[in-house]
């Protein structure tokens, strides 16, 4: 590397030129003036459908953002510049309810006329205070029990979906079933980890941490129920301890457990299937799905919203309506695994084909039932933080040998501290 004086003077010139050109323009508020910018996470909206939308709506400008869409959105909102016209929002949509001034009320754009085409509880989840319709449903995550039918049968247990569903209709039944199963199949686990039990138990409750007026419910029985259930599973030796399996660093164990059959079953939302198929193709045909113990619950799912920066909200709403219409949702499911949020889409015959990966079972029957039965529970802006506090402590009990009583106290204290700091308590 020869660093000549010339290169330095060039650099100086560049620097000065750059600084000089700086002062002139300010940024437009909308990201691409004249076009409709759509921000979505990779896989959050079906690529094929987006491509078709581009054909249909010439001004659409889709922009895939990797995982940190929220950070980028927040930076744009804070800087009031380069905002997308349409953006995807995750299941933490409640955190945006605080300042709906940044978004357009979809009701003002005619959303009421299509509201009935979507599952009521999902539509409600996108409704902010005072009926402000913030989000338009994309997909949902109905929970179900996925299990290895071949291993169940091998151990002499019921393996057909209906039989299994009957045998494990409550969590307690599930645990009893699991304990006996694990005796026959040592070295394997019925349940992923305590976090799953807690999360999906809570997902089945009609109320979580707050009521709809954002009042903290305090020491509510459903929290204790979910907690105790998770601990029971742990004490019975049913959990595999794969907490954290979503992070790249720790995903190896759990995915290997799918392949080796160490994980006998798991309760999870439907979006995990794409991962399952990709990581464990050798196990095709061995899995079945049935109703989750405890009933229907939802975990995950996203929305589309229109920001205030959009100069043409009517057009934007047309795009959203088309993208997420009951006609297009089945395609999104088949291509990208995005579970439809529209009851009409759930009835589409294309989704009721036997699936080879599940040994010819029509999984949609079970999943759509779960989707319909989800209780509309209020998901507050603090839910994720609070759930993290509890599941962290559960993980400490499960993997770090912490005393459960101490863990519960620490979780409560963390929750109180958090809420006091946030001004809720």
């Amino acid at each position, binding site marked *: 590397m020869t660093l000549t004086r010339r290169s330095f003077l060039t650099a100086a010139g560049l620097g000065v030129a750059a600084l000089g050109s700086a002062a002139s323009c300010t940024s437009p508020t909308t990201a691409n003036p004249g076009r409709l910018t759509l921000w979505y996470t990779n896989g959050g909206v079906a690529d094929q459908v987006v491509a078709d939308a581009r054909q249909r709506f010439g001004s659409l400008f889709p922009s895939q953002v990797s995982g940190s869409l929220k950070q980028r959105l*927040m930076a744009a909102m804070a800087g009031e510049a380069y905002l997308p016209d349409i953006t995807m929002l995750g299941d933490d949509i409640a955190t945006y309810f605080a300042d709906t001034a940044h978004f357009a009320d979809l009701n003002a754009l005619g959303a009421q006329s299509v509201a009935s085409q979507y599952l009521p509880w999902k539509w409600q989840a996108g409704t902010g205070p005072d009926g402000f319709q913030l989000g338009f449903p994309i997909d949902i995550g109905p929970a179900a029990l996925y299990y290895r039918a071949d291993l169940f049968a091998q151990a002499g247990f019921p393996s057909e979906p209906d039989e299994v569903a009957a045998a494990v209709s409550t969590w307690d039944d599930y645990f009893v079933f699991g304990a006996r199963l694990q005796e026959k199949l040592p070295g394997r686990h019925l349940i992923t980890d305590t976090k799953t039990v807690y999360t999906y138990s809570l997902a089945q409750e009609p109320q979580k941490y707050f009521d709809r007026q954002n009042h903290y419910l305090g020491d509510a029985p459903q929290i204790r129920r979910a907690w105790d259930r998770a601990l029971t599973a742990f004490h019975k030796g049913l959990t595999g301890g794969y907490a954290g399996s979503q*992070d790249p*660093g720790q995903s*190896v*164990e759990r995915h290997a457990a799918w392949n080796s059959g160490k994980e006998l079953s798991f309760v999870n939302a439907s979006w995990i299937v794409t991962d399952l198929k990709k990581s464990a193709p050798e196990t095709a045909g061995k899995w079945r799905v049935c109703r989750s113990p405890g009933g229907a619950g939802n975990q995950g799912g996203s929305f589309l919203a229109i920001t205030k920066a959009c100069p043409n909200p009517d057009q934007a709403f047309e795009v959203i309506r088309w993208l997420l219409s009951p006609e297009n949702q089945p395609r999104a499911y088949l291509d990208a695994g995005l579970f439809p949020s529209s009851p009409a889409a759930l009835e589409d015959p294309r989704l009721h084909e036997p699936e080879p990966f599940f040994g010819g079972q029509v999984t949609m029957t079970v999943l759509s039932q779960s989707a319909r039965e989800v209780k509309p529970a209020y998901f507050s802006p603090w839910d994720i*933080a609070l759930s993290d506090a509890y599941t962290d402590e559960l993980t400490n009990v499960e993997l770090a040998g912490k005393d459960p009583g101490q863990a519960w106290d620490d979780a409560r204290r963390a929750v109180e*501290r958090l809420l*006091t700091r946030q*001004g809720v308590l």
Partner: protein
Amino acid sequence: MATLTRVPDPVRSRAPRQRKRWKYLPHYLAVSPFFVLFAVFGLYPVLYSLFLAMQRWDGVGPMKFVGLSNFQFLVADPTFWDAMGNTLIIWVLSTIPMTALALLIAVGLHSSIRFKGVFRVAYFLPNVTSVVAMSLVFGSIFSSEFGILNWFFGLVGIDPVSWLTDPWAIRVAISIMIVWRWVGYNAIIFLAGLQALPTDVYEAARVDGAGPVRTFLRITLPLLRPVLLFSVVMSAISGLQIFTESQVLLGNRGGPDEAGLTMVLYFYDQSFVHSDFGYGAAIAWGIFVVVVLFAILNWRLIQRPGFLKAGR
């Protein structure tokens, strides 16, 4: 510069002062690019973060002034103290082996062997690779059941370690990643130091009959002190800000028992995952205080007379 004996000539008496001011103009110009850029892109965010630390803000809604309460929470926050402890523990666990290994490698490279260039490239390569990219690789290596580390342990009869779930194993795992990344960098710095040492001292030692180990301990190490301490201080400042290794391996919470939760990871978790930007800013200032104190501690050690002198 005008002396008292000279008659104050109006023109003359103005000139020296002007000359004095003009004299420093090039110096100010020379340092100004940095400071102008820093004022805009460095200072403003820093001041903004101080302002932010006194607000409650979730990134979306309006800000609410809360005075010093975020800092009060910080001081009483057991998680922050845990994070501080973790950061310091990881720093010790990584810096000591790293420095020792870097020294040994440098000594090896300094000796009369061939293929030095190849070795240097091999050892330096980790430093130019992004940590995020290698996260899955390390996750795989540290896997309890299938990782190569445990396979190797099995070969020599050691029980498998739960690298990613046992709290102490987690800290060791993160430290291993840090060592892997920085050994080559520091080895090359030490190598430079070795290459610049005067050879006559070694001649004298050889004549006196000192063996290689004694020479190393009594002569090389003391002579290398300045370089050693430079390396330690630099790693003190950057090492206390470890973030990526923890995050990619264990997620935003630092794993079971928050064993891998470092201070910067806690800051990131509170700010960007839980959208508590006010508290996050307070944490960032807490980190600042800790790092400054630590750096001053190290600096004092260097300034101590006798440290910079070569060995006995």
